[in-house]
């Protein structure tokens, strides 16, 4: 399995599109004033948006999304618009993939991330 890597720079538009498509309209992802009122620096990306991109990378590594049988991650760090996150997948033994998501400061935003897949 070759290493698969994809870098994504998050934008408010992408976060809003994900909110709309996923149905997660929590205002911390959409309303900067609200986000600051609850102690955040501003709007932040959904953890599930990050995991969605991670799953695409994992699916590519597995040879197709239909092969994925397990996906796990911890939401460890905030992702703000303008942040660039490198999502990567690499071989971790038969049927296993090690996953990572690291921002432009070298901080892991998703941790303990892994996937398992079927061979067909």
């Amino acid at each position, binding site marked *: 399995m070759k290493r698969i890597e*994809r870098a*994504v720079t998050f934008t408010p538009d*992408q976060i809003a*599109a*994900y909110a*709309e*498509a*996923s*149905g*997660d309209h*929590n205002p911390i992802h959409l309303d900067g004033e609200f986000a600051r009122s*609850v102690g955040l620096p501003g709007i932040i990306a959904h*953890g*599930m*948006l990050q*995991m*969605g*991109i991670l*799953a*695409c990378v*994992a*699916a590519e590594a597995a040879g197709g*999304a*239909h092969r*994925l*049988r*397990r*996906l*796990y*991650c*911890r*939401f460890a760090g905030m992702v703000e618009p303008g942040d660039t996150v490198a999502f990567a997948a690499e071989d971790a033994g038969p049927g296993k993939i090690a996953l990572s998501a690291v921002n432009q400061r070298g901080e892991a935003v998703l941790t*303990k991330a892994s996937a398992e897949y079927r061979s067909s």
Partner: protein
Amino acid sequence: MVGASSAAPASGIRSIPPHLALSAVEGKTYPAVTSVIDPERVAAFARAIGADPADGVPPTFAAVYALAATGPQLFGDPEAAVDFARLLHADQEFEWERHPQAGETVTSQGHVVSDISRRGMRFLTYETATTAEDGSALCRSRTLFIIRS
């Protein structure tokens, strides 16, 4: 014979472990929710995560058919008393027997696996089982929510 009960106060009243005292919903199962995997929504979801809509239903579309389908039951449950503004999605696991197809009808059911309060934080594990129309298993979603006090 008296050894086992010697730790209990003379009155016979034992202190209740804090997580049992605070959780009204540990073990609670919510009514099943049936939905159709909407092809247009699948395409919009795929575009939002940078996937090709031609590749079918993205794996984490489970965020819609599992989490968005059953999460509101937990968040809207007065017994659960979840303050949405203090809610953190701490981790997420999905396991798939099979990935659903666009247009398929699926049924999801949420269940509170555990609800533990510790040092002013609440750790609530919510599991959602999704099945196909014939009752076969599709996906199991397991979420850890942390609710700050």
